[in-house]
């Protein structure tokens, strides 16, 4: 058996254990009123809990890999004379230095990151507004029109102007019925896809196991 087969088997075993443990564990009702059912349910939950805790640790550590990747790429770009990479690396070094000198200090966060991200959020507003103004440029059809109409109604409905009270009622209905239905349909579709791909991954059929 090659590496690929082994990876598939490990994936299958781990996936199945977790799924079964989550479904059967901590649910004594499944095993009737026998005396040992609670203990059994508790024990069944254990493997799933252990595996999920391991996963949480892996996820927490993966941020380190991300930072190493970021530095590696930008050091590489620096050698090609990219200005922004130099800024990034310099900021990284400065922040590390600052936090080493002033342990636990969050003033950099407050003085630099919050204003910058707030400014970006404002830019995002401009992008959204101008993007919204160009919907018909890309989709000059009934769907584009519908999209723009809904956007305008909801925006108008959110305005605190007394004259717009009827629009407010209409936009509340829009949000509560058609928009909510559409959103649920999209989420349902995504949930379906999630299950199919999840099954494929648990069964070891995903390409990433094939080495």
């Amino acid at each position, binding site marked *: 058996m090659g590496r690929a087969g082994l990876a598939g088997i490990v994936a299958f075993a781990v996936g199945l254990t977790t799924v079964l443990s989550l479904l059967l564990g901590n649910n004594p009702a499944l095993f009737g009123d026998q005396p040992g059912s609670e203990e059994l349910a508790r024990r069944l939950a254990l493997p799933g809990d252990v595996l999920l805790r391991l996963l949480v640790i892996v996820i927490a550590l993966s941020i380190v890999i991300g930072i190493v990747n970021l530095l590696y790429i930008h050091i590489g770009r620096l050698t090609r004379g990219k200005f922004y990479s130099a800024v990034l690396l310099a900021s990284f070094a400065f922040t590390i230095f600052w936090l080493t000198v002033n342990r636990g200090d969050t003033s950099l966060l407050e003085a630099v990151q919050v204003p910058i991200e707030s400014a970006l959020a404002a830019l995002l507003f401009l992008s959204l507004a101008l993007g919204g103004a160009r919907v018909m440029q890309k*989709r000059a059809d009934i769907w584009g029109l519908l999209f723009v109409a809904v956007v305008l109604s909801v925006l108008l409905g959110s305005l605190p102007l007394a004259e717009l009270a009827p629009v407010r009622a209409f936009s509340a209905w829009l949000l509560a019925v058609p928009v909510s239905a559409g959103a649920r349909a999209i989420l349902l579709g995504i949930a379906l*896809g999630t299950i199919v*791909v999840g099954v494929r991954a648990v069964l070891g059929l995903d390409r990433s196991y094939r080495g």
Partner: protein
Amino acid sequence: MDDTTLQVYSVVFVAITVVLVYTARYFQARRWRQRQLDGMKRIPQWITQSIESSRPLHLSFGNAGVGGDNTPVALAEAEFFHQVVRRAESCDMSPVVSLSAPTSLPLGQDVLRRAWLKGGALSRAQWYPPDLAYASAISALMADDEPAAHIMAGSFGAELALMLDSAARRGQPSLAVSDRLDGQAVAFAQADHVLIGEELFAAPGSSSQDGGGHGDAAVLDVWRALIISGATILLMLEFSKRLPLLSWPLVAIGVAILLLLGIFTVWRR
């Protein structure tokens, strides 16, 4: 519905999916007609442009990462990107894969590794911190690397607007889809091409020559049809209860009309 009932239903649902997945794979789903996803029409042309102009393609996972609730999104997009990258392998420039969930970094590198064994390609899977920081990093990348096109399929929020706006200003075409509703809305409004909802998961199947990929898309189609018909029937039943005018024969006629419409649509395809 209590927890136990819910769990039993979940198990049945997953079991049926497993059976469907294996059945579809067994028959390689060749007989199942693939849905044509309009949003993907331009991808071959982008690949050609990328090859001819030596500009990389930019493939983005967004915040989809392994381990979170959007793990399947990350896996499905890895497969999709794999299909794209294989077609672009005669390009001089390796595609750039960007992501903001560090756990999908191995997936991104894997996508590149399979097609690009040349040096330096692995460093083109790039992580940036999530959300707006990611969006601004990608905008910078658009200026620096001048990608031929952007395929942004994964998990994005409203920050997608910044990226798509940047791409549009630079004349770089884009395809976008997100598993988050705000990102999906932005994609619809601003991307040149868009996939919606479960097309995110059907994309790998419809771009692949692998029977398995087709099989998964076929399973999705079956479930989709079942859910739509189930919801329609339930809706009709509900209406028939509310309105005395709607009697059983009327419901039956309604269902028949819907069925005919469905058959007609399939026949048209």
